[in-house]
Structure formats: structure tokens, C-alpha cells
């Protein structure tokens, strides 16, 4: 049973699916759900440039493709550069009259590895140029497709195959890289965080990004039952808990102006989130306490930026 009653807007969404069933994602993959919702928000007039990753592999095993919109995969680190190329190609072709002028949204799609690590250079370049595209980072907090290795987006304390919890080390020893802040530092028109557990919010943010002239960056938390060692049916609940505990707050940044989408008067204890995931099961109460302190501190900093400071 769920306590979330913001449910009834679902019936107003389009029934069309631009990401077809039959893709090979794991059971309960919230990243696939995120992609599905993004496509619902944007409709058919888009071109997608994808990085290598889970979504690329599960959606296009030759000769089958789950994409009902144009989709292009080149390599791991250049989704943003390819998207820049697509956007400028369309711009020139329309200007020279070689294709009819109409609004086509260019979407770059990459995971946390393809964004925060290997893809950071191309992303930074595209954001600096303020190319007219939307960049979606679906963050499942590790290199899941290659076998759950850590990325700079892996949260502190998480056990991954290259940052395993052992006798000498307790999993990931660095704090999660703040990609939305890095994107916002480029001074682009729109940055947002989203989570498929809040589908209407996600769709609204993507639609907003599509209306923007210039670069938009949306960071979507994608629960991964396989990599997080959680039960597949909990993917939506975990996403909700990430937001309710303040670990992944939902907010927008429009030209430097922060807006917190949901402000909780009291954050849920992070233990409720952590205990459902096998990748955190080695954490001691002490470490959990440390993490909670930092989560709360960052949450207060975010509230201050959004003008809701104490």
C-alpha cells in the first residue's frame, strides 16, 4: 500500500508509447521507466543521441530496436557532442530549406558514467556553447551495464564491484559528485532533478525543458534493483524514499534561481532508505549517522539557495 495520493493526474497523460515494450532491461528497472516517461513527455518530434550504457544495450540488440523515434548511438563519452551535431545539422538544413522547418527537439541521453565521468568533457563543452538541446542523465549510481562498477555518482558507502565493502574499506569512500550543480555552474537556462517515482513532475520538467531555447539539463535518479541489490518491486518506493529522506531532493534551477519542488518539514530517517538495499548492508550505525548529518546539511544549503532558509 502506498501513501502517495498525488495519483490521479496520471489519466491525463498521453497513452502513446515512443519506447516500445520488448526491451531487455532487468525486471523493475526504473531507468527504463524514466526513459519511457521522458519519451511520453516529448512525443514523436525528437531525435535522440544516446551514450553507451544500459539503455543503449537493452533497447537496440540488432536487428531489434525499441525506439519508435530516431535514435543514434556513437560512443560512450560523446552523447552531448553528437547531440550538438544533430541540433546544428537540423538548424542548417532548415535554414537552407533542405528540410521543412518544424520544431524537432534534440535529446542527449546518458547514464551517470557517461555524464559525470567519461562524458563530462563533451557535456561541459555543449553546455558552455548553450546548444539548443536537452541533456538527460539517468543516474543509477554506478557503471551498471558493465557489472556494477563504481562511478563518481556512486553514493558514499555504497558497495560496488570496484569499491567493494571489505575488511579494510567500507565501499565508496568519496561523496557523490553533484552533477546538477556542475550543470548549473555553466549558467544554462534550465537544470532540474527528477525521479520516475514522481512521474507527473518528471514529465512536466521535461516538457518545460523542451520549450527552453538553449541547453537544459535534467538529472534523473534511476533505481537499479540489480545493482542496488534491492527487490524489483521496490523500485518506485526507493525512488520516493530517496526524495523523502533528502538524499535526492527534487528541485529546479532556472538561470541561477533555485526552486525546491517539494519541501519536507521533517525528512524521513535515511535508515528507511538504506535498509532496503543490499549495497549498503555493511554500513554501521555510526557511518549511517555521518551520512545523515551530511545529507541534512546539504539539504539545508539547498533550502537556503531556494530562499527557504532558516
Amino acid at each position, binding site marked *: 500500500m502506498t501513501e502517495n495520493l498525488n495519483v490521479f493526474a496520471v489519466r491525463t497523460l498521453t497513452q502513446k508509447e515512443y519506447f516500445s515494450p520488448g526491451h531487455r532491461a532487468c525486471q523493475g528497472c526504473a531507468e527504463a521507466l524514466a526513459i519511457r516517461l521522458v519519451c511520453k513527455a516529448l512525443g514523436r518530434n525528437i531525435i535522440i543521441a544516446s551514450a553507451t550504457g544500459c539503455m543503449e544495450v537493452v533497447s537496440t540488440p540488432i536487428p531489434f530496436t525499441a*525506439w519508435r523515434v530516431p535514435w543514434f548511438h556513437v560512443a560512450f563519452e560523446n552523447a552531448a*557532442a553528437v547531440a*550538438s551535431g544533430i541540433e*546544428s545539422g537540423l*538548424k542548417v538544413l532548415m535554414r537552407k530549406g533542405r*528540410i521543412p522547418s518544424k520544431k524537432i527537439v534534440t535529446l542527449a541521453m546518458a547514464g551517470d558514467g557517461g555524464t559525470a565521468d567519461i562524458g563530462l568533457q563533451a557535456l561541459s563543452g555543449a553546455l558552455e556553447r548553450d546548444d539548443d538541446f536537452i541533456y538527460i542523465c539517468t543516474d543509477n549510481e554506478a557503471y551498471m551495464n558493465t557489472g556494477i562498477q563504481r562511478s563518481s555518482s556512486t553514493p558514499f558507502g555504497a558497495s560496488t564491484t570496484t569499491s567493494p565493502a571489505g575488511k579494510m574499506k567500507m565501499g565508496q569512500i568519496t561523496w557523490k559528485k553533484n552533477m546538477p550543480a556542475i550543470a548549473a555552474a555553466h549558467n544554462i537556462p534550465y537544470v532540474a532533478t527528477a525521479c520516475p517515482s514522481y512521474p507527473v513532475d518528471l514529465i512536466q520538467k521535461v516538457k518545460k525543458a523542451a520549450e527552453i531555447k538553449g541547453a537544459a539539463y535534467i538529472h534523473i535518479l534511476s533505481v537499479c534493483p540489480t545493482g542496488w541489490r534491492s527487490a524489483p518491486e521496490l523500485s518506485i518506493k526507493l525512488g520516493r524514499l530517496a526524495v523523502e529522506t533528502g538524499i535526492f531532493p527534487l528541485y529546479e534551477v532556472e538561470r541561477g534561481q533555485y526552486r525546491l519542488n517539494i519541501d519536507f518539514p521533517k525528512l524521513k530517517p535515511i535508515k528507511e532508505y538504506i535498509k532496503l538495499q543490499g549495497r549498503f548492508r555493511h554500513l554501521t550505525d555510526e557511518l549511517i549517522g555521518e551520512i545523515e548529518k551530511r545529507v541534512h546539511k546539504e539539504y539545508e544549503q539547498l533550502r537556503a539557495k531556494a530562499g527557504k532558509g532558516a
Partner: protein
Amino acid sequence: MGKRVGMEVSIAAAEAVKQANVDVISAYPITPQTHVVEHLSELVANGELDAEFFCVESEHSALSVCLGSSATGARSFTCTSSQGLALMSEITYIASALRLPIVMIIANRSLSAPINIWNDHSDVMSIRDCGWIQFFAENGQDVYDHVFIAYRLGEDRNVLLPVIINMDGFTLSHVIEPIELIDQEKIDQFLPPYKPVLSLHPDRPVTMGGIALPGIFTETKKAQEVAIRSSMPKILETWKAFGEMTGRYYHPIETYKAEDAETLLVTMGSFGETASAAVDKMREEGRSVGLMKIRLWRPFPFDAFKKASLNAKQLVVIDRAISVGACGPVASELKAALYEEHQRPSIYNFIAGLGGRDVAPSDFVKMVDKAEIEIEEGNKEGFEIYGVRE
């Protein structure tokens, strides 16, 4: 005859890109390619060229942008050298496998370490297998002409492959040469706008770049291999059409005073003109020496090469790059090309001109002298780096 002007070859190359009505230019600066992209950005800034000029943040992104724009059907161009080419090398393989007709000029420069900004062929030799059609230019006119040839060829519906034009860095890129410019109407007739067979557009959604499992990957590579091999007749046809338009005919292998030559110098790139001065001198002295210049590097012109070489007794192959631990890359390919022949010339391989070291006509004479002596003494398949200070 079009207008003949003295201009820096890099500028001529940029002018050719302008006349070819390129849609998207994406580049990152690296010596000695800079003059090409600087001039292109001026042309765009002045409105003389209606194109999107991208200053990207690395060469890897430069080529990636071109893949994106080419996939939508825009004519795309990039230019690089050395380390930049090495950085984007991952993407070169992808461009050819996805059959996107991008044109790239490489201002050939040596690969680090040590870092060296001057001319040799090691950069392009590192991507021999990338699947692009590859030309070597001998002089500025070649570079200018081949921009049009490359786009018409690459964009042909039966080819659809990216093309590299190799232009020796500094040695060609930064010298002023007489260039005969072609009238714009003639170019517009020779090179119509690009009409892609498949492109990214919502009206016809396609998926490009999926994952191929072991059961199908081999078939995809076979298809790619057939595509590049069957581009050979198109290459010859395009050169012929170009020749009819300008009076300049190009061939995969070009020879100079080679008909009855016992010894043939074999070069690629700007070495050709210097070597022909050496051949003239040796012919005056009554020596039976000629010159073979390889213009088409990929797809390798096996038939034309065999035809041009089988009458000679020895080939003196001058490589401007070294495959460290083996020998010169060109020499090893030529040896492989001649392996099946019963009667074949011996091949003596020199590595010369590395890192921009000058190779004068007298050096070519010395190399031929050395090769002839060595072969006399029974050392038929020699290999050495020329001019090393011991």
C-alpha cells in the same frame, strides 16, 4: 582555365570547403591545422560561407559533432593532425561503419612522444584500418581539388563512406603555391547538395548504432568491407569526371619517367615533387630510375600498383613513418601486395623525413645509391632509417 593565384595551401583548402557549400564545420585547434580552421571561421563570420562553425572542446568531440550532423543529412567537415587524430581515432572507425560521408583533412604531423609539431605520416598510419577512403595530396592543387572530389565520392549513394585527404603539415599546409581556383558554377554542377539515403528525422524514425551480438557482427563487417572495395570504380569515375571539368586527371598510382626504369622510387605525399627533381638529375646521368607516387592509400589499388611495378627490378620505398618494431608501413603493404607474383622486384625500405626533417633531392639520390649497392651485395629486402646521426 580558372583563376590561378598564389595562396597558402591551408587557405586554399578552406576556400575549397567554402566552395563545396559545407553545412557544418567542427574543429579543435592543433598545429599545423590551425590556418585551415581559422580561415574557415573568418569566412563564416563574414557571411561568405553559410555554415555552422563549431569550436568544440576536443578533437574527439569535433568528429562526434560531425557524425551527428552528417546523420541528419548535413555536409560536414573537420580537420586535425597528430595527437588530435589519435584522440578521435575511436570515432573514425565508427564513422565509416555507420557509413557517414564526412570529409576530413589531416595536416600530417608526427605522433608524440617526444612531442614534435612537424611533418610525418605517423598520425594517419595509426588509423590505417579505420575504413575511410584515404587520399594523399602531393601539392596544394591536389588538396584544393580533392575536397570536391571527396564530397562527391563520399556522398554517392553507392559509396557513402567518409574520406580523408592527407596534406603534409607545414611542408604543404604552410607554403604558398599556385592554385587554380575553379569557378563556382562548375563546382555546383560537379557537386550537387547532399541527399542522404538514410537520415535522422522524426518522419522516418530509424535506429543507428545498435549493438551487434557475435551472431551478426561478422556480417556487418563483411558489408562494410564490400562497400569500401566496391568504391574503387566510383573513385576512378569521380576522378575522370573531375578531369573532364578541369583538365587535371588523377590516378591511384602515378608514375614519372618510369616506363623503362629498373629502379623505382616510391613515395606518398609531398615527397613526390622533391623525388621527381632527383629522378630528373639521375636520368640526366643516364641512370635507369623512375618514380611511383601512391595517391590512393585506401582502398589500396592492388591492380594499378602491380601494373606499375612489375617491370622494375627494385623498388626503393620511402616511408615517412615507422611501425616501430617492424618496418615502414607502406613498404610492408607493398610487399604483401606483391607476394603472389612470381616475378617481382626487390623492395628496399627507407624511413626518412620523420618529425619534419627535410629530405632534399640529393637525399633521394643517396638513398637510391645506397639501395642499389645493398641489393648488389645480396641484401635485397633491406630496411633502414635514413640520415640518422650515429
